[in-house]
């Protein structure tokens, strides 16, 4: 099947590319657009390492086709910081040492940001269930949950 022409917006930048019909959004982000911050941990939607936001909705980019990016606006980890100023979530993750190896971190941050945009004052249980789709094998989640709660607090005060 012939490649399809796709126009999309990623982190406010417009991109045009020819997309293999079978390619996932994750493949496109990583291999076509060189945005390798989104990670592939499973390619089956189980680990959340590839989490991105598409038109305001948190998705596993491994479960979305590249051609579905047509006309959409995508936010990835590469768009989270504002110049050299880190997003409060990013800063809190550093302050709390909420990452060890760091492979799940981009996906967790993208997912947590999506949560705080919907729910600026989540309970610990709400954070835990929202992030249940993001696997982390290193941290036991403790410091991740604390970092998200503290970032929420900081953002509410801002």
């Amino acid at each position, binding site marked *: 099947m012939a490649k399809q022409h796709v126009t999309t917006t990623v982190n406010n930048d417009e991109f045009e590319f020819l997309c*293999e019909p*079978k390619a996932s959004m994750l493949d496109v982000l*990583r291999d076509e657009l060189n*945005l*390798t*911050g*989104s*990670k*592939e*941990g*499973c*390619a*089956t939607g*189980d*680990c959340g*390492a590839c989490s991105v936001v598409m038109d305001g909705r948190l998705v596993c980019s491994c479960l979305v086709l590249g051609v579905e990016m047509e006309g959409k606006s995508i936010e*990835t*980890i*590469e768009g*989270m*910081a504002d110049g050299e100023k*880190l997003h409060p979530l*990013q800063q809190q*993750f*550093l302050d*709390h*040492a909420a*990452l*060890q*190896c*760091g*492979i*799940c*971190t*981009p996906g967790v*941050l993208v997912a947590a940001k999506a949560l705080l945009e919907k729910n600026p004052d989540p309970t610990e*249980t709400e*954070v*835990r*269930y929202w*992030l*249940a789709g*993001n*696997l*982390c*094998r*290193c*941290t*036991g*989640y*403790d*410091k*991740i*949950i*604390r970092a998200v709660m503290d970032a929420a607090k900081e953002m509410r005060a801002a």
Partner: protein
Amino acid sequence: MDNSMDVGYSADDKELKFVGKRTNRPDGVDKVTGRARFGADARLPGMLYGKILRSPHAHARIISIDTSKAEALSGVKAVVTRDDFEDRDSEFVPAGEMMVNYRDMVRNIMAREKVLYDGHAVAAVAATSVTIAKQALKLIDVQYEVLPHVIDVVEAMAPGAPLLHDDLFTDGVEPKPTKPSNVAKRLEFNMGDIASGFAEADEILEKTFDTKPVHQGYIEPHSCLASFSENGSAELWCSTQGQYLVRAHCSKLVGMEISKLRVTPSEIGGGFGGKTVVFIEPIALALSKKTYRPIKITMTRDEVFRSSGPTSGGNVRVKVGITKDGKIMACEAELKYQAGAFQGSSVQPGCMCAFAPYDVANVNVIGWDVLSNRPKVAAYRAPGAPISEYAVECVIDELAERIGMDPVDFRLKNAAKEGTQTAYGPKFGPVGFVEVLEATKALDHYKIPLGPNQGRGIGSGFWFNIGGETCVNLNVNEDGTLTLITGSPDIGGSRASMCNMAAEELGIDVGLINPIIADTSVLGFNFLSAGSRTTFACGLATIEAARNAIENMRKRVAQLWDIPLDAVVWEDGAARPASSNAGEFEPMTLPEIAKIAPKTGGPIAGHAEINAQGAGPGFGTHMVDVEVDKETGHVKVLRYTVIQDAGKAIHPSFVEGQYQGGAVQCIGWALNEEYVYGEDGRLQNSGFLDYRIPLASDLPMIDTKIVEVPNPNHPYGVRGVGETPIIPGLAAMSNAISNALGLRMSELPMSPPKVLKAIKEASV
């Protein structure tokens, strides 16, 4: 190690500015912005994609492999099979905490006479796209003669079991067997007189426990990028816990000189022992050698589960005898560990650790290394220890209950301490098990009342910790900053710990030190980031390199001031005269010395090349409260506390992180995780949906208590903390569930169906 190095001052001896502080992680910003480059994040011009064809059978003879149709497919540039890897002599060399045999390794990376497990590599292709590579795999025609298989460890030991290797004769039994079997090795550790020990006991308990293989479960699949040059040299980028071991294995398997292969470790997305060996790296090199094009291979999650190493499952019989007042008199165990398709399970450390936490005069431990049609096991955090210590800690707990003694008091009464003779050899130096148990008793957690269907469990654990070969360079740059070059991949924040120690030694701000993890061409050999050795061994080398740099700077200043070297001291980041007798000189700061280095002899650096000795053993205890739903068998973890002796926490946040992560891996191992095989010998749960590791929503916060009993063999007292946290939790979980239900379980995982079954059986 250089024994002249002044060691043994403890954290209390002086005010520490950076050691023990929660400093910024040098690699942190790149990891929260997506910039950090992991295994799969590299690419090169002209790169091809490698894919691997894997066995659909648990056990089969390979009759033929026809790759002609695959090679004819447009876009396919190379195919490799067993014929592309030279056979190797049987030769054992260390890899991580295990020994490997190149004759086995060349067969594990690419099947030769037979496929020995579902997922065993049979052929690999390189093509211009992943899609074409996948199409090509389907065009490879492999003819198999399917053979009977064996999955279970006890069945694999039985006479008449299907044989994996007809040239494997059990080692360690006299006389040496004349018939081959699946039992590679028998080990035995003895101390005292086991029979008289049991004769003196008032209570004896003997039970058998089963654990299943569990995968390390790192979120980053194995990935590598290999590029062979026409000049015979090659570069390899990969996600690994040890670039030097990758170089050693690949140069051997591909047939090249060590100096011609340059291995660069990517950022590593989790390893836990599973990235201490090679799988795809020699294949990528072989494909690149055929095409002289860069080859990228990334495993799928299915391949990670089916083809990379889980840890052993085990069958462990434990017998312990105690007196009425709670003194352990005799301990006996027999361990049967799955090695997978090739010999080399972690049964030896399993035997050595089994009773190490306790001061017991009479010990007998027998271990069996057993092959079956499963992927070859790899290390998983304290390899071998969780399995044996789980069984021992369950028996200990039940015995304490029988004599009506508090489980912590029981452990305290028998705890190993300085001078305790171990069954595996050495006497312990200063160790912190008593301090850990005392800290456990003092916890508020221990006093919280429990509700119906709730139970509290205690478990303890021991791991040796290791040292090993390590090199560090510390370059003093022209502007007074420093570049710290180590060869140990950072698997959990170790760069921050190294910088803390270097800054402490140099008396400068930690932010002036930029750490780099070197490729294999930069430094001499470094052993793996494994065995809880990095902060200890790489830390020792970092301290020695810093002291070497300081001495070199003192020499420059002594020469400048024209006074003897010992008249120049180093304090607070500057060279100063030792006393007024040495002369009146203004202190020279590190940047000042660096600036004029060209005039005083050229560039300044510090070096250390050591084989670190004297790692301090690590003891820990876990306390967990659970609630069991008797209708569903579901176990909810209510509270969890990890108490462990770190020796000294160089960076407390990352020590806590090791404790918390290990505890949650225990919870997964105890409650959910297992390899599930069908009758056909094929793995049925090779994905994260069916192989369920703990989620954020499964867990409470994991509390930690860092105990610090300094290791006298490290300047700041470091022991190493990564391994021990995965040991105590299996028994703590089992004991908690037992206490909640009033019955004793003896197998892992304690998944809902098994908990329900135990409840049903107990009510009959």
